[in-house]
């Protein structure tokens, strides 16, 4: 393919069109509500990458990427995991409980809570599998429905049995020092969570493209009847993919809790909206898993930058949520148009 042809394909690809379109529409919204885009956008960029904010953006990138994997892995098997919040909270509270209640030697004090968090997230997610394969309740519905009680349960645990005594604040006591994630190069925000999630992303990309399991997951997602016909145990594969997604979510929760401020604060996991930023990023990457880290980076940039924009230019950070929402809408419209094009 010639260079102009490559350029054309990149420029006309769904993610680029969607982001450009969303930014254009958001600019229009800014003009309508009387915000000066010439002030807002520089503030957004500064909020995300300048003035020492880059570190914070990268720190937010870690759980968002983890949640993107939580959505993307089941999606490869054709299951929509919208219960990320519940799995995230379950993973976080489990990790906090293990770190607080189980005396562990250094090293294990970090590793075991992470594993426990991943297992908890996986268990919350896998409940949806038999509901889908046995009872025909779509995972998109059941994961979402299971999410709310899981978040509430975590909230209950941190308010009562695990609460820091005599403070009245819904948070656990600080975790023991041994359970803190090692910081990366003396940074205040960055921990080994970043290399860990990067390695897991690479592992997922490898498994997806070059293993038997990855092949069977993709076949199940592309055409379940084809996979069943080929002898793939599609129910088991779908359950495995959901459990794997849930484990990524649970691990993300554990990473947040074991990172600064080293405690489970009620609402701190779900309030930043990692789950749906991640869903937007995966949808934006459409069918290409390799692109997922890039789209996650882009949306994290918008998310964190939006807060900076609010601080500096007085522009409500909801505007960046408008960008995100518009991206999803445009991706959906493009996908629908493509499907409706006569074959």
């Amino acid at each position, binding site marked *: 393919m010639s260079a102009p042809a490559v350029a054309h394909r990149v420029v006309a690809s769904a993610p680029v069109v969607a982001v450009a379109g969303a930014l254009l529409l958001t600019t229009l919204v800014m003009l309508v509500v009387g915000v000066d885009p010439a002030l807002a956008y520089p503030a957004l960029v500064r909020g995300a990458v300048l003035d020492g904010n880059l570190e914070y953006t990268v720190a937010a990138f870690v759980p968002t990427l983890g949640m993107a994997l939580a959505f993307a892995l089941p999606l490869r098997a054709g299951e929509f995991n919208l219960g990320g919040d519940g799995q995230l909270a379950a993973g976080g509270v489990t990790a906090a409980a293990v770190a607080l209640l189980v005396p562990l030697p250094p090293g294990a004090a970090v590793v075991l809570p992470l594993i426990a968090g991943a297992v908890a997230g996986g268990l919350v997610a896998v409940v949806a599998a038999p509901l889908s394969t046995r009872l025909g309740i779509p995972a998109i519905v059941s994961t979402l429905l299971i999410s709310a009680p899981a978040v509430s349960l975590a909230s209950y645990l941190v308010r009562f049995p695990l609460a820091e005594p005599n403070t009245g604040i819904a948070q656990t006591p600080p975790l023991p020092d041994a359970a803190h994630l090692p910081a990366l190069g003396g940074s205040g925000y960055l921990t080994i969570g970043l290399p860990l999630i990067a390695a897991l992303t690479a592992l997922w990309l490898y498994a997806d493209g070059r293993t*038997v399991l990855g092949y069977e997951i993709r076949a199940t997602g*592309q055409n379940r*009847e*084809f996979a069943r*016909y080929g*002898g793939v145990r599609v129910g088991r594969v779908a359950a495995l993919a959901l459990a794997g997604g849930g484990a990524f979510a649970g691990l993300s929760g554990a990473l947040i809790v074991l990172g600064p401020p080293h405690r489970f604060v009620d609402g701190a996991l779900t309030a930043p909206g990692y789950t749906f930023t991640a869903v937007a990023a995966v949808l934006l990457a459409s069918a290409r898993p390799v692109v997922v880290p890039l789209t996650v980076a882009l949306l994290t940039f918008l998310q964190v930058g939006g807060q900076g924009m609010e601080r500096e230019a007085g522009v409500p950070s909801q505007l960046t949520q408008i960008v995100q929402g518009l991206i999803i809408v445009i991706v959906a419209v493009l996908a629908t148009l493509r499907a409706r094009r006569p074959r």
Partner: protein
Amino acid sequence: MYAAELVGVTKRFGPVLANDGIDLAVARGEVHAVVGENGAGKSTLMSILYGLHRPDAGEVRRDGHRVVLRSPTDAIRHGLGMVHQRFRLFPGLTVAENIVIGAEPVRKGRLDRAAANEAVAALSERYGLRADPSALVGGLPVGVRQRVEILRALYRHAEVLILDEPTAVLTPGETERLFEVLRTVAATGVSILLVTHKLSEVLAVGDRVTVLRQGRVTGRFTTSETDADELVNAMIGRSLTPPVRRRAHAPAGDPLLEVRDLTVRDADGVARLSEVSFTVRPGEIVGLAGVAGSGQRELIDSVTGLRGAVPEVLLTGTPVKAGRDPRVAYVPEDRHGRATAPAMSVAENVLMGAQRDLASRWALPRAKVRARARDLVDRFSISAASVDVPIGALSGGNAQKAVLARELTRPSTVVVAEEPTQGVDVGVRERVHDLLRAARDEGAAVLLQSSELSELRDLADRILVLYEGRVVAEFPGDATEKELGRAMTGATG
């Protein structure tokens, strides 16, 4: 003047010409049967009449006036009603509620239940369709649910009633009662279009018949002046069949596939297969004939293991294993729904089933997957730009060759082929036939299901005929199409 007319209706779906200049006219108060094989264009034609599809050319007339139907709502407004093969009822609502839905009697902004029940009772009285207005639809037998569907159409003042394969779901007793109802309804001046492929029914209840084949009208008859033979000829057509190539030696040895007294029921307890028994020996091709929906799906899914472990099916003497038995190579009819994942590459499509053999531990090296695919593409002369293009981008014939390549290179002794030449051109058809003959000559037991009788006659050593889930006849491979056609439509004698 006719109650409803289709004039010169043409409808194309991509490369498929589903309806090709069809004329069909239904008089007031007549029961008009529309017959044809699967894929003859009946459903498309009825969908056009009911506003579900718009014709590419031609027009629809009601009482002599041209009407444009953009949706079923338009069709209902013009006095058309349709009873679909799959009922569209709310099981949690009562009979009356299901009937009045969309045109409810309202009092003070709320559904007037008493008025609804009364209206439905009057309606069922008038047409002799007995149904309790206050019964919940979920608890009713299939035959009564169908009556509710008919009542719903009549409640909306349907003057032309389309019934799509209405007896497919009914017991013989219910079928009898349905026919009585249809005659009563027709006597009130309502025109009935009965879509079916069962000739006995056409002759029993129809006044006139229109026969379709490959999207064209191939016959118009008055039932009192025709018989099953004439209809079969119009339905299946008299294509000149070339002399059948046979082998010198007869198949021998213990059967590789044996089905013993197999009965399969669907979720509603209706028998889809009844006491089916047959064997296929090594080096033998056994053909399976029958109109669509006679139990082919259930039989083939049982034989391949896709219905789970079925003890009545024996492969080389032992029961079939659940979830795709590796001893069976299976070429499915539904190329996009089952045989392939259209968006996946050719390489990944021909991989299915062999992925664990090709893997070293868990890793599945792409180079190996591609090399194997290239080898199959060469050996089976599949034309594809590369093995990395989506299989959905290949022509139907090449995709089919890829499916055959995958299945026939499995280490299997039983081959099940379902409509293996559907939608492929003549050249590929020859190639597919050669491959099936080659599998037979290498000692495989081949079960060939086809709706093309000439294909069965070309290939099969014996032909079994399925009708309503039973093997009703067995013919030698050189049976005439007339004999087969009669058995397929349940015509006795």
